[in-house]
């Protein structure tokens, strides 16, 4: 329960921090950190324009996408407190329920019959597909290391002891950050601020969404960011009591948001044709983690 509340709370200002960081880095004054949320609330009140080409899929897809993100958040634990849903192998459910949201967002893009949105859909489908093995290999290695198969138990028993485990923590954080960037279509993979439809991924998929639906999609992105932030935070606070873990959680989320902002300010997007290769290398980082775990367990030789 506590993780759900905290993630929803953080989602309100996460993108705000990212935008604020970017504006400071580029020497602008920039909007306040609640501005993205205000925009979303305004969108909720607005009317909508639907394309004549679309069918019922286009109407239901944003709701399903949003619901899938909510469902995934329910699985995330908070330190020693279980998520609302917790069972053995819940991270498999986590990944698959996110996938159903993605399925619907892709087909809703195809529903518009546009030349641009299909392009975004194709890229999103390919990239998220390539990112999936990295997540599973990472969780599989952690499951092997800790001997458990649910998010809660894995994070409870995962703790830092040897040098290798520090290296594992760093690599796991890297993989999770990168997966978050891919899933949210942010900088090294996709540039949310680009103005050319041909170079977009996620933005071009939602070109035809407006009003309430667009608000849902935008807020789902915020929630997804906070959700991955919570996963990363969970790596670090093990079974600390709440009065430590909540501040640590907030600090890690803010750090995550700031680093996303910095990354977007100072790096350029990768070439679209090289994205696939880059994403697939994440799996090899996950494999490194797997071999690190084998070294800790003494099974390598």
């Amino acid at each position, binding site marked *: 329960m506590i993780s759900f509340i905290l993630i929803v709370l953080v989602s309100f200002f996460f993108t705000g921090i990212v935008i604020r960081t970017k504006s400071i880095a580029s020497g602008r004054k920039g909007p306040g950190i609640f501005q993205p949320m205000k925009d979303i609330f305004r969108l909720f009140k607005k009317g909508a324009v639907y394309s004549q*080409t679309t069918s019922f899929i286009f109407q239901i897809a944003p709701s399903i996408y949003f619901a899938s993100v909510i469902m995934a958040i329910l699985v995330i634990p908070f330190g020693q407190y279980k998520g609302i*849903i917790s069972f053995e192998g819940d991270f498999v459910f986590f990944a698959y329920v996110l996938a159903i949201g993605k*399925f619907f967002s892709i087909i809703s893009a195809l529903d*518009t019959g546009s030349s641009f949105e*299909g392009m975004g859909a*194709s890229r999103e489908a390919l990239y998220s597909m390539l990112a999936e093995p990295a997540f599973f290999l990472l969780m599989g290695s952690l499951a092997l290391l800790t001997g458990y198969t649910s998010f809660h138990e894995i994070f409870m028993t995962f703790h830092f002891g040897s040098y290798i485990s520090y290296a594992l923590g760093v690599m796991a954080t890297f993989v999770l950050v990168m997966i978050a960037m891919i899933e949210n279509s942010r900088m090294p993979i996709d540039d949310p601020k680009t103005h050319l439809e041909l170079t977009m991924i996620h933005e071009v998929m939602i070109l035809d969404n407006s009003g309430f639906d667009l608000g849902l999609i935008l807020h789902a992105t915020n929630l997804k960011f906070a959700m991955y932030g919570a996963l990363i935070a969970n790596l670090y606070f093990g079974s600390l009591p709440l009065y430590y873990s909540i501040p640590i959680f907030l600090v890690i989320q803010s750090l995550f948001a700031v680093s996303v902002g910095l990354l977007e300010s100072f790096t350029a997007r990768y070439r679209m044709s090289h994205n696939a290769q880059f994403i697939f290398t994440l799996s090899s980082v996950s494999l490194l983690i797997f071999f690190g775990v084998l070294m800790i367990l003494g099974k390598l030789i």
Partner: protein
Amino acid sequence: MIIIYAILVVVFLSLLIIPFLRSEVKGIIPLISVIIVSILSSIPSIKALTGESTEIILSGTLVTSIIPVRIDALSAWFILTINFTFITGIIYGISYMQAYKKQKSNLSLHWISYILAHTSLIAVCSVQNSLVFIITWEIMALSAFFLVIFESYSAKTLKAGINYLIQSHVSILLLTLSFIWVFYRTGSFDFIAIKDFANSTTAFGGLVLMICLFIGFAIKAGFVPFHTWLPLAHPAAPAHISGIMSGVIIKIGIYGILRMIFLIRTDYLAIGYFILFISIISGIYGVMLAILQHNLKRLLAYHSIENIGIIGIGIGLGCIGLGIENNMLSILGFSGALLHTLNHSLFKSLLFYGAGNIYQSAHTVNIEQLGGLGKNMAQTAFLFLIASLAICGLPPFNGFVSEFIIYSGIFNGIHNATFLNLMFFIFSIFGLVLIGGLAIFCFTKAFGTIFLGSPRHLFHHQPQESSFAKRLPMFLIVILILTIGIFPTVFLKALSLPVSQLTGIKSIDYLPLETSISKTISQIGYVSLLFIGIVGVVFFIRKKFTISNQYRMSSTWGCGYIGQTSKMQYTASSFVRNYRKLAEPLFSVHKFKRDLKGVFPGKAWHETHPKDKIEEMFISHPIRQLKHFLNYFSILQSGKPQMYILYGAVFITLIIAVPQIYSLVISVFKFLNNL
């Protein structure tokens, strides 16, 4: 005993009646017959699943000796799956075949083959005499062949059918050889003899026998590299036949493999590695080729190979579990495999029926020509969507449950595993995840281009929603898909006996560990329900919020360009283009195109033909070589009847003369010796 005679009487009577009926009502008799046979065979099956297996010993003939008919839990699971798919198949098929009612005799042959296929499949699952098993297997293969070549006037269909016929006979050859080997050593056709033989022979002998049988059954099941008949036969057959072929006929190969695993207690670890490796390759290779297909039914056929791969991963893990005596792993592996067998028969037949609806209303299954069908055929679109989600293994549908069981098996297995096993487990996780991701890619392409957007091709008749009789069996399947997705524990309970039969572990509920698994699985059901609930709530809130908001319709955003035509939308080929670029080194994609050139450019076009490299390597290339070699003897084929009569005469003379000359030579030698 009565049941067997009753089934035989019903089948023979209906076979006799069918040819004499008018073609409008020809479907009725097979419908009644299939339903009666299903009910009759389901009674002992349900009994067997609750723990009371049936054994009937028929006296047989002098050649076959006694014929034991045993319906145990494993057979029962497959018989029930077969019955359900055949019932939905015939309900769908009757209205599908209305379009062909002029071909009276062809229809008779079709329905006769349908009944024979159904009965012989049930027989294959229950007969345990290897000679009779081969005979029923042959009846099944032949009737499936006649079902496939319904449109035999098209050369393409006939070619696909003959390809299937040849390959299924290679399978029969391997099975026959293995059974003869066992018979030669034990003198008995009973399946128990296989068990005794495997116990008495060396470990290596058992392994060879197992692999020989595995390949025989794998051709039927469609494991890579024995899959090449599948993508040809499925598109050629009528929709309901593709549905039952993909749904249950290829599963009979899985049944055979499981039955042999149960009988041949040999080096399970080696068998497990072998099956796991071949399955992961099948899974990934099947779905990777599926993405590139333009023909919807061919695409679905490649997906069958992928799903056979997933089932095989379950079986392989189960065998490894038996080998390293990890009960959890073997239970979860086999239950995942068996449940996925049922699941795949459901959503794959649903997808093929959907493809049939598309074919009969749009008269093409070429994805590139379709589009926007969702508006004309909303219900078919909805049913196809459910099946697509289920085949991708997404919650809250049934595919997720079986894939989740296999995942839990792997994650339970990785503790206390050796390095080699760990590598196999990581490889299978990687394979399963990649298969899942690629399946999503493939079905967003298929569903998105067929049902969404606007038509890519001018239809002479506006596509219409299909008749209720066609949608009824599809809704039946959807109900079962959702039931498995939301109440998986019921099916897991039903699986406990077949699985305990395979693993030799008494029952799932007796082990303390197992209760936690069934708890987890039941939780999957609740969580899926919760997900549906949340979707409902979000949708409700959306409705409440937007009811007062204004909305209007307009054209799709075209980046400022408003001259929208359907030609501008993304096509299936362009959707998979970036994937094709990545996968190109693995496949040979033949591309042909003509660019726009000059001041008055003609028509530009672009074609891609994905080629199956493994088929090229294992089937087409050797056959080309063989043909080349045999070409040296073409001189004999002069085309003159006189020559052929001469060959016959020479042959007869040789047949008679050779033994004579042989005995003459022998006697000459004897005479010389005596000297």
